């Protein structure tokens, strides 16, 4: 498949877990002075390689907390988080940054591109932190942008692009260091339905190339599009359903106008 997977980035050593994300009794409590709020009750979630998974729930349900924990932006109060075979629940800031850099790709609702940079430079940013050589980095950024259908606009600034195109740049950036997991926080929230579907399609293609996509969304319609839906409520998992037939439905609905070859 196309998305420049250079190698299978599973855990080192012989014993390979089938879970890319393995949460064991993971919990998060916030403290503010004397009172404490347990935003995420101890949860067990196992997500295998190569699926497209959605996390849903109303505001305050704990899904943002879960996403922050998954993205290693926050540290759990208890339990374990095994990412791609490595326990990452008790690590220092530098190591966490390195893992964020190489193991996780982040996609945001408002794209979070760097407005002064060209889109090629934008895609280069994670590779810079990973220590790529300048030439290799520029080449890979161009390749990735080509794959998301923006190969002819490498020198454009994000302000010159539409929302859907910006999100494609953001996805290319998330793929820069070839991570096994893509975390997407409401990736279609700022897009119209058609463009949103195109983005979902892109995620499906990524899934097909062996990556795991975990998407936080408000949109209940997407339940039919993904293979697994985890619903949170008040910090508990209230529903965790699998829908293995998701893919055909999205392709038939929205794939007709996809740019992706």
């Amino acid at each position, binding site marked *: 498949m196309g998305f420049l997977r250079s190698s299978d980035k599973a855990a080192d050593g012989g014993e390979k877990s089938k879970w890319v994300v393995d949460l064991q009794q993971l919990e998060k409590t916030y403290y503010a002075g004397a009172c404490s709020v347990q935003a995420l009750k101890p949860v067990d979630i196992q997500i295998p390689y190569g699926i497209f998974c959605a996390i849903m729930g109303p505001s305050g349900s704990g899904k943002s907390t879960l996403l922050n924990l998954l993205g290693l932006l926050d540290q759990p109060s208890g339990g374990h988080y095994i990412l791609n075979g490595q326990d990452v629940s008790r690590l220092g800031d530098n190591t966490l*940054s390195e893992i*964020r850099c190489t193991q996780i790709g982040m996609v945001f609702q408002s794209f979070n591109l760097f407005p002064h940079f060209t889109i090629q430079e934008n895609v280069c940013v994670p590779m810079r932190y990973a220590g790529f050589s300048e030439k290799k980095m520029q080449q890979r950024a161009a390749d990735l942008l080509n794959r998301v259908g923006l190969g002819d606009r490498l020198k454009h600034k994000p302000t010159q692009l539409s929302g859907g195109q910006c999100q494609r740049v953001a996805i290319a950036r998330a793929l820069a260091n070839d991570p096994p997991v893509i975390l997407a926080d409401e990736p279609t929230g700022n897009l119209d339905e058609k463009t949103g579907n195109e983005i979902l399609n892109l995620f499906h293609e990524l899934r097909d190339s062996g990556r795991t996509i975990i998407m936080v969304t408000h949109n209940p319609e997407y339940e039919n599009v993904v293979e697994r839906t985890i619903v949170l409520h008040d910090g508990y998992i209230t529903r965790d359903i699998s829908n293995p037939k998701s893919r055909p439905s999205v392709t038939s609905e929205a794939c007709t106008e996809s740019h992706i070859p």
Partner: protein
Amino acid sequence: MNLIRTVELSIWDLASHAFRSFLTGLGVVFGVGAVVAMMAVSEGASREALRQIEARGIDNIVIRSVRPSTDQSTENASTWNAASYGVTLDDMRHIRHDFDNVRSIVPVRRLRMSVYNKGKRSDIQVFATIPEFLQLSNSRVADPRGRFITDSDGENAVKACAIGIRAARTLFGFNDPLGQNVNIDGKYYHIVGLFENPFGSQMMGGYDLDNVIITHIEAANTLHGKMSTERKAGSFERVIVEADFLYIRVGDQEQIENTAGRLRTYLEKTHPQNDYEVQVPYELLKQREASQRISTIVMASIAAISLLVGGIGIMNIMMANIYERTKEIGTRRAVGAKKRDILTQFLVEAVVLTSLGGVLGVGLGVGLAEIVAIYAKMETVVTPISVIVSFGVSVCVGVIFGTYPAWKAANLDPITALRTE
């Protein structure tokens, strides 16, 4: 992250709001400009002072005969009404024998005679001294066909003289002065040589060395006696001064002050009438340097305050910059930037800003120094060291005032930062 690339990116970023960056760096520009200009003025002044002191005389120690203020000059029957004062050749011999630090001692007597140029008196002065004077005054023979005065001139009381190049031009124009005669108070002296002083030095009393005639002191004493007659606007005055100056060169510069002290003690005893003055150009130089240092410190403090203000400006704008770019920082952290990377990025940005300010400031300082040189008619010298120091200081300002904002940026909570709009 590659440092060169970081610098490049930070220049981009600064260029993307060029005017704001310029205003921010202005404090550093003025600070550095003030430092460079101040140091140039100060250096120019101290070189000027040094030159004045050097020109005044020939290094080391000068004993100068002065007319005692009380005018109790010894009256001598045989030289009626002649004022006799000052250091004598006996003093010279004594110093030469008893002071082991003294490497050479040269007496100079101003003959107070007029040099006639085509029947008119000129302003050229005649001095009588000994052959060592040439070397001691750092002068040299200007025409290889001639020579300086010699001891045999003195022993034989020859009317021979050496002439400074400017005096020669005054008297003879473009004709060859060698072998000519010059009319000194009605006596014709044979010109045996031409000399020049490449440093433009002056004799004590402000006589330009290139504009004097020099003859041997013994010959002068034999031919004219020890009494001189000074002509002042219509009046005559007779004086007996054996040596107007004694130039003393000390073997080691470390010994100058010590020797000067001993000379003063010796002269206090032998010349109670206080008809001398000991001048040490080196001491003068040190005094000048000390007062120069004080004014340099004062001016440097003023310049430092302006750099401080510049630095606070940098810090302020860096803080504003960080608030403005909180979301960018959060995103960078989310895609894998370490705290260190963020710290480096903002620190480099601050240092690039102040360094650019430093470069502009050096330019401004050089310009200011030029302006001062042209309009204030002062010598200014921009030394490489002042440029290096002030540029170094501007880099330091960036580091000092950029560290806190950069540290603050690095320690932003990524979640909060990402949520900021």
